[in-house]
């Protein structure tokens, strides 16, 4: 009987070896994004925005037009592209430092203005490209090259949960968090990315999917051990789920109850 090839390289990925470390989740995420660009027939009108980080060379790997942004400014560059050409499908691909540190202002305002772009946020709790420094997403007690004794929340604060933070904005958006360190999680991540891309393809709203990822090299663990570490430490702090949909409820505070305010007499 003739054999069918079930899996082929997505057309949206160039036939190149990547520079990513063995086991790096970027490889999986690149493939998920490329498979979706093929499936949703977006490849020919996609403009990707590459970050400064391990994925700085993303423009080599995807078979689409690309723009390299300065560090943290991918959401602003994406805004420029989408406002100039609303017909293009704009995907910004960012890491911890790019999105949650230097680029924190840009991502919040891009989401708040409701720019109809999609952001793929790879969260591996460290700065990979520059050799493993503390990130805004590094967990308390996690050792990095700039906090060798482990992150001290008293000095550096707690890690930022970007999906939750962005979900408090009133402007409609699709905000989700998934993980891609095991194949079953990656299948779920693909479903989240598919929803995100569909929202942009329909011209609906801003979308962002945060993808918990491993960094075996800078965590100092082999890939399988790193996947276990992610499960034990990152999943409890960064819950998987959908935090905001464009049809969802506004997270306005509840009205004050006069009786609960000390010193006030009941009207």
């Amino acid at each position: 009987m003739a054999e069918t090839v079930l899996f082929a390289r997505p057309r949206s990925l160039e036939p190149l070896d990547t520079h990513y470390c063995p086991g790096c989740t970027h490889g999986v995420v690149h493939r998920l994004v490329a498979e979706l660009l093929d499936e949703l027939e977006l490849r020919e009108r996609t403009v990707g925005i590459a970050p400064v980080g391990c994925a700085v060379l993303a423009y080599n790997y995807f078979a689409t037009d690309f723009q390299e942004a300065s560090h943290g400014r991918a959401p602003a560059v994406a805004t420029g592209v989408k406002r100039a050409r609303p017909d293009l499908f704009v995907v910004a691909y960012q890491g911890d430092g790019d999105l949650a540190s230097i680029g924190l202002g840009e991502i919040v305002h891009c989401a708040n203005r409701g720019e109809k772009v999609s952001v793929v946020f790879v969260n591996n709790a460290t700065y990979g490209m520059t050799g493993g420094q503390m990130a805004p997403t590094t967990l308390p007690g996690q050792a990095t090259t700039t906090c060798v004794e482990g992150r001290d929340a008293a000095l550096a604060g707690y890690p930022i949960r970007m999906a939750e933070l962005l979900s408090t904005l009133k402007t409609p958006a699709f905000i989700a968090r998934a993980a891609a360190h095991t194949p079953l999680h990656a299948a779920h991540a693909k479903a989240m990315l598919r929803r995100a891309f569909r929202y942009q393809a329909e011209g609906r709203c801003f979308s962002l999917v945060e993808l918990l990822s491993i960094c075996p090299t800078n965590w100092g663990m082999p890939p399988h051990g790193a996947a276990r570490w992610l499960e034990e430490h990152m999943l409890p702090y960064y819950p998987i789920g959908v935090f905001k949909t464009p049809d969802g409820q506004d997270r306005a505070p509840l009205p004050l109850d006069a009786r609960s305010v000390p010193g006030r007499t009941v009207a």
Partner: protein
Amino acid sequence: MARKLIKGCEAIGEAAVQAGCKLFFGYPITPQTEILEYMSRRLPQVGGTFVQAESEVAASNMIYGAAGTGERAMTASSSPGISLMMEAVSYLAGAELPAVIVNVMRAGPGLGGILPGQADYYQATKGGGHGDYHCLVLAPWSAQEAADLMRDAFDLSDFYRNPVMVLCDGLIGQIMEPVEFHADRPPCQPSAPKTWATTGWRGDRPRAIINSLYLDPEALEKHNQALQAKYDAMARNEVRCAEVGMEAPYELLIVAYGSAARVCATALGALKAQGVAAALCRPITLFPFPYAEVRRAAEQAKAVLVVELSAGQMIEDVRLAVEGRRPIHFLGRQGGMLVMPQDVAEKAAGVARLLLEAVEGNRG
């Protein structure tokens, strides 16, 4: 379009719209906020897009993205905001993107003041951002010239695939003057189809990648050499300089640009009445700087007086041009104080007296 009494900032905005600019990204800062306000009203009228960005950092990166798709995009700011944009300007130059950046200069450094200054000359012409790059820098001296140069800025920017800075100051931004818009004027440089732009890859051209990263040093050196060749071409073909009062022989050459030049032009009349023969050389392109023109003009004179609203920045380029052949004097104001025509006249008369004393000293 008939002559219109219009504020400098608004003339800049209108000229941009008439030049086909459909995208403006900016942030409020005195004294150029009127450009934002004008564009926010005007762009929707022509099907354009106005975005008030969260900061100048964001605005400068937004024009990067928009320019990368091949559309005419611009931003405007004033000195402290322009400082924030310097990284993006370096990226624009490195990625060879066309864009127009308007700097309505104010007094600095730091938060400084909101009145006019010219102390961003170094930032505009010598870099400001990192790396071996230049913006083409145009310096108008009136609202009319600002409108004319805005049109040229977009044409030059597209032609050279390089950012162009239009360097005004707060006086030109805020002044209200009659301006005639020449929308039908032919472009100063032809435009070519932007096959390099990221418009979606359908396989009919190489993939468009807007990028300034070259990890291989040989490739990066080649890229830098190509950029330098571009700047050399600008120096050969785009130098602009204006002359006032050079029909008759003159002994004092005044060099100034922008609002300072306007004040000096007024002073020429007073100087003539005092018997001091002076002329004004007014660089319009600050990069490429009119070195040859300034040298030629200086050689017709006995001394040079540079007038700037700063501690003296363009004076260094004047020194380079003159190469020590003539003494160079300086008059400057800072902090937002303006040079007045009588200040220029007084200083020029003082220089003329020094020249006379030197001649008499030689005789005696």
